[in-house]
């Protein structure tokens, strides 16, 4: 019921905005009225494809597109909870989601049909670009969804597989409303979103927030090269740009005509720290402010810098958000968040999210930071997932795959920095002589999302561990810096 109630919020927006443009992709446009019609038709097709198969949840696994949004909304309309799965996830992640979340139905775009594990039946939907794939029943009893859950998204964590966050209708609507109010979004805004809609950056800044005010959302897929972004800017007439820091670095280094950016009122960066020199070059070249946005998968959007004259830090809390800095068990100053858009729990890790919160309901962000002049400053990570240019990776998930390679005795995956000071995944592997770098890379490519594949593999005689089995990182780094192979 919560899923369909969430769609009601969008349906109201469609009635209000009528013939205004809701969605764009390249030169294609869909008005609010057309969006409602397309959603209704897709919902009928989904119901038909699932006739006789009772399920309260469906994993949506596809790339950004207008049809993706239509399909997502259609799932809500049918009352089924969509689990938004990263389009880059591979067989290992999908298998973990199927088993851990009790998902027996996947709604995928055609290139991804083959990835669905234990598929039993494939029903193409009208247009043939999407299909409903039903799998064999999951062996264990599926975990029950929380009664309030309307949407699920995934985050990396410490469990060795993607963790499924359950969000209520209230949380999703609050995240959108907080963003609208906090950033001054209006019906005249046209947001060009370069991030995948499965990511919190896009989901919270671009999807429901756009519809609530009757604005335009312009989608993008594929590699965000400077030439393609420039074309998308022209097609969309964007007033807002939403992207990860890597995109701003590319744009800052490209010699693009500044007048193409003249319509942009503001651009948003999130997911990873934006280097000050990149910000300076971008803003100088195109005269567009980059506003940092700080958000956490478990809590939704947290901060935004409202003052264009203020150039340092991550801004002040958005409406509905309370932040505080506390000393954690390791003695670090950790950013703690409580918001009106928090996830309810992890579907596939019962009790973990609830246990992580403090007595006042604040969630530990995993980021260290401090306040300065009323602004939040994030200074690093407390540990946990590696942040790869805005994508979080649980090293343990990668280690499991590497250790399964025949001939590998032990493996550790950790964050390292390249010559450009960018974070990359480094695998230190202890193996017999038959195992090569290509074997390790191939195993990871075969079952994990491409961004989880280690870029560097160093073979070591043994992974140095303390007697309880903990990796001695200082010794390991000395080994890998000292000239291992790979």
């Amino acid at each position, binding site marked *: 019921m919560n899923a369909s109630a969430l769609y009601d919020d969008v349906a109201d927006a469609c009635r209000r905005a009528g013939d205004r443009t809701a969605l764009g992709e390249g030169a294609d446009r869909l008005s609010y009225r057309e969006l409602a019609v397309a959603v209704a038709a897709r919902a009928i097709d989904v119901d038909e494809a699932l006739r006789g198969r009772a399920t309260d949840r469906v994993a949506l696994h596809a790339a950004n597109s207008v049809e993706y949004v239509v399909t997502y909304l259609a799932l809500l309309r049918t009352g089924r909870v969509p689990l938004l799965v990263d389009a880059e996830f591979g067989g290992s992640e999908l298998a973990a989601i199927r088993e851990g979340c009790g998902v027996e139905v996947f709604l995928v775009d055609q290139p991804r049909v083959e990835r669905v594990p234990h598929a039993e039946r494939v029903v193409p939907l009208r247009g043939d670009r999407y299909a409903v794939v039903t799998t064999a029943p999951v062996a264990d009893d599926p975990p029950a969804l929380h009664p309030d859950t309307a949407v699920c998204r995934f985050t990396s964590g410490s469990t060795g597989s993607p963790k499924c966050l359950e969000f209520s209708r209230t949380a999703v609507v609050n995240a959108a409303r907080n963003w609208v109010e906090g950033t001054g979004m209006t019906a005249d805004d046209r947001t060009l979103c370069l991030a995948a809609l499965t990511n919190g950056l896009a989901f919270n800044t671009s999807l429901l927030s756009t519809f609530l005010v009757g604005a335009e959302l312009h989608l993008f897929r594929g590699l965000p*090269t400077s030439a393609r972004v420039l074309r998308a800017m022209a097609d969309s007439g964007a007033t807002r740009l939403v992207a990860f820091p890597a995109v701003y670095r590319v744009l800052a280094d490209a010699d693009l005509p500044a007048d193409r950016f003249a319509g942009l009122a503001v651009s948003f960066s999130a997911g990873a720290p934006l280097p000050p020199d990149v910000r300076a070059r971008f803003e100088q070249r195109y005269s567009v402010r980059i506003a940092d946005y700080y958000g956490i998968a478990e809590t939704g959007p947290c901060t935004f810098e409202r003052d264009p004259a203020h150039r340092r830090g991550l801004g002040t809390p958005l409406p509905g958000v309370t932040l505080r800095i506390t000393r954690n068990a390791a003695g670090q100053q950790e950013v703690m968040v409580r918001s009106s858009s928090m996830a309810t729990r992890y579907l596939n890790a019962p009790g973990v999210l609830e246990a992580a919160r403090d007595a006042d309901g604040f969630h530990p962000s995993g980021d260290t930071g401090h306040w300065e002049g009323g602004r939040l400053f994030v200074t690093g990570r407390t540990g946990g997932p590696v942040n790869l240019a805005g994508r979080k990776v649980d090293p343990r998930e990668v280690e499991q795959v590497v250790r399964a390679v025949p001939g590998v005795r032990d493996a550790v995956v950790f964050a390292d920095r390249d010559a450009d000071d*960018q974070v990359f995944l480094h695998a230190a592997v202890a193996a017999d002589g038959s195992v090569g770098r290509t074997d390790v890379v191939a195993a990871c490519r075969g079952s994990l999302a491409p*961004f989880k594949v280690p870029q560097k593999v160093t073979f070591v005689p043994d992974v140095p561990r303390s007697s309880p089995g903990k990796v001695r990182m200082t010794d390991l780094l000395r080994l890998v810096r000292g000239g291992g192979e790979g």
Partner: protein
Amino acid sequence: MSARGVGDLRDQVESLVVVATGRVVTAEDLRDSGGSLEAAGVNSIAYLNLVEALDHRYGVVVDPERDGDALATVDGIVALIRSARGGGVG
């Protein structure tokens, strides 16, 4: 193009890929993977850097959607550059 010219260009492309990965993936890694960028562990950020570098260095505007297959290997990228140059040696 002479064999030496092709070899020089291949070396240049390998260097470009290595730089695009922040020098994490080496030329040897590329050769070990048979020239396949994905098999060598080149990630999407490095692809982005590479496409931009091809534009800056050779004036080759690559569309990853259209030219995805060519971008997958060192030989494919060499062919893209040669094609953009009309087959000549630059």
